[in-house]
């Protein structure tokens, strides 16, 4: 029995829609829900917290079916992108308000508020009104308010998306610390991959109200399963057909290339191969190495992307992207038209179906 289980949840509220969402999370999990805008991620959270009643499906928390519980009986907290601090209360009052239903003793409430304020670094701000705080401070206060009641489940609805890069990074660290201290199970909706890498131990990819893939971040990003996920996550996707098996390796003929993969498949099967751009090494000569795949191609484009360089290599009819450092790019003298070898391991050529 999982700690949280969402079973076959269906709901249609006009703009957004859930169609048969299923999720599981264990106690202490940090689950990231990613997907493009409009994929129904927020709707899912608002159904879990009890804002909407689902048309179909069940939500089970700690073995109890809470689908028809009113929101005040669920012990689930939520942090929205727009913080939703009560404007008529100062920060202390905001956090204490959350506790008042749980604790009667004023001193105890004060102690709890002080503790969480310390963890999130808002001790100095307790007697200020929300309107006077910066975006990052407000969001920290909102997280404090949600965590202080030690909810069974904490929902985060794109909590960082309105903040700038630096503030985001700081907040992620603080959130991580706080979550550990209060040992909460978290469902975090985001469209920022950095949130996933920095915080989550499990990922669920959603599109148009449906779960496309779930797993730990490593495996989802390295081995994105349906076509959409791979496209969404920005990997190389090649369509092909299994030619033969060589020992433990599968040989795939994909768009004019012969690719060795360590994933199992049946000969004759039509498959899609996914190779992450950062797992491809580019070399001037076909080098002897442990990597089983070495294909020759021609550079068709070189683009900067943040501090890295994306190299597009034309191989046969296909084009694959590799991500390398600017230094390597300079060393290899890469420019459109140059002949180049793309090298990657059989274990990095993932077969998706």
């Amino acid at each position, binding site marked *: 029995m999982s700690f949280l289980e969402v079973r076959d949840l269906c709901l249609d509220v006009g703009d957004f829609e859930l169609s048969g969402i299923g999720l599981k999370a264990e106690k202490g999990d940090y689950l990231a829900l990613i997907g493009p805008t409009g994929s129904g991620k927020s709707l899912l959270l608002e159904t879990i917290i009890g804002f909407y009643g689902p048309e179909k499906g069940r939500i089970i928390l700690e073995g109890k079916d809470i689908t028809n519980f009113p929101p*005040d009986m669920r*012990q689930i907290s*939520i942090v*929205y992108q727009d913080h939703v601090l009560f404007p008529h209360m100062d920060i202390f009052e905001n956090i204490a*308000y959350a506790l008042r239903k749980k604790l009667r003793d004023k001193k105890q409430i004060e102690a709890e508020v002080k503790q969480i304020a310390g963890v999130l670094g808002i001790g100095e701000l307790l007697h200020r009104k929300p309107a006077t705080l910066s975006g990052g401070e407000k969001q920290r206060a909102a997280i404090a308010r949600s965590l202080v009641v030690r*909810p069974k489940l904490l929902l985060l609805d794109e909590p960082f998306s309105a903040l700038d890069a630096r503030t985001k990074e700081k907040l992620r660290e603080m959130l991580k610390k706080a979550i550990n201290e209060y040992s909460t199970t978290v469902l975090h909706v985001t469209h920022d991959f950095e949130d996933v890498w920095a915080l989550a131990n499990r990922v669920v990819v959603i599109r148009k109200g449906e779960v496309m893939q779930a797993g730990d971040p490593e495996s989802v990003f390295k081995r994105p399963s349906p076509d959409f996920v791979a496209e969404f996550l920005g990997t190389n996707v090649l369509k092909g057909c299994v030619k033969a098996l060589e020992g433990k390796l599968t040989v795939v003929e994909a768009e004019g290339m012969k690719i060795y993969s360590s994933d199992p498949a049946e000969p004759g099967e039509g498959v899609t191969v996914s190779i992450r751009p950062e797992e491809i090494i580019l070399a001037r000569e076909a080098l002897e190495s442990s990597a089983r795949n070495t294909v020759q191609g021609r550079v068709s484009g070189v683009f900067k992307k943040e501090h890295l360089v994306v190299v597009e290599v034309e191989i046969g009819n296909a084009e694959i992207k590799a991500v390398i450092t600017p230094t390597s790019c300079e060393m290899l003298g890469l420019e459109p038209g140059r002949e180049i070898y793309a090298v990657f391991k059989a274990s990095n050529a993932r077969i998706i179906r």
Partner: protein
Amino acid sequence: WFRTFTVGIACTFTFLLFMTIGTLLFVLKPSDLLSSLLSEEMLYSMKLSMLTSSASTISVMCCSIPTAYALSRFSFPGKSVIKTVLGLPMAFPELVMGLALLLLFGQGFLGPYLEALGIKVTFSKLGIIIAQFFVAFPYAVRVIYSTFEDINPRYEQVSRSFGYGEFETFRHVTLPMARSGLFASGVITFARCIGAFGAVLVLAGGSYMHTEVLPVTLYLNISYGNLEMAITSGILLMGIAFLAILSF
């Protein structure tokens, strides 16, 4: 030129409106104004207006806050019908409302039953309050509804998630957040109640020193050709309207 043209029209018509209202203010000598103001009839009318409007404003607020909240937050069968009906008075003449109330509380329908209980609505002071209530109620619901709509339901959702029930949430979160909006609605409601004419005239009649509220005083005195008194009550009504607008 387009800018000049539109701004010109805006200024012209506002000036006209302004002048109209200004006329009212400056046509009377202060001594005439004062003597009218202190006449027995005017004092009676002012007192009655204040009392009836206060009573109807309080009833309107008590009923319209829950109604507006229900419309804004809950979904229930018939909600869209209610919304349409409450939208009516924007275009619905007061006078027709008065006629409908007269028929409802008159001899044909509820009148005899209420009279058996000792309650008389038509041509009575209670009639004034009822007329004012029905004139102001739908309007107040509209204004308060938009106040509640301006409050993101997520605030309530967050409060609910901490274990507070619907009423506790309403009391601790929604009501304080809507405070200034509700205050403004109260003032507007009061101004509408005190200014209600058509419905009051038809339901409660306009009898001298009996059901004579300020608008009735204005009308009766125009009929008698007693312009001083009419203008004085006009100025009083306008003053209240101005106060209401400024606090809105």
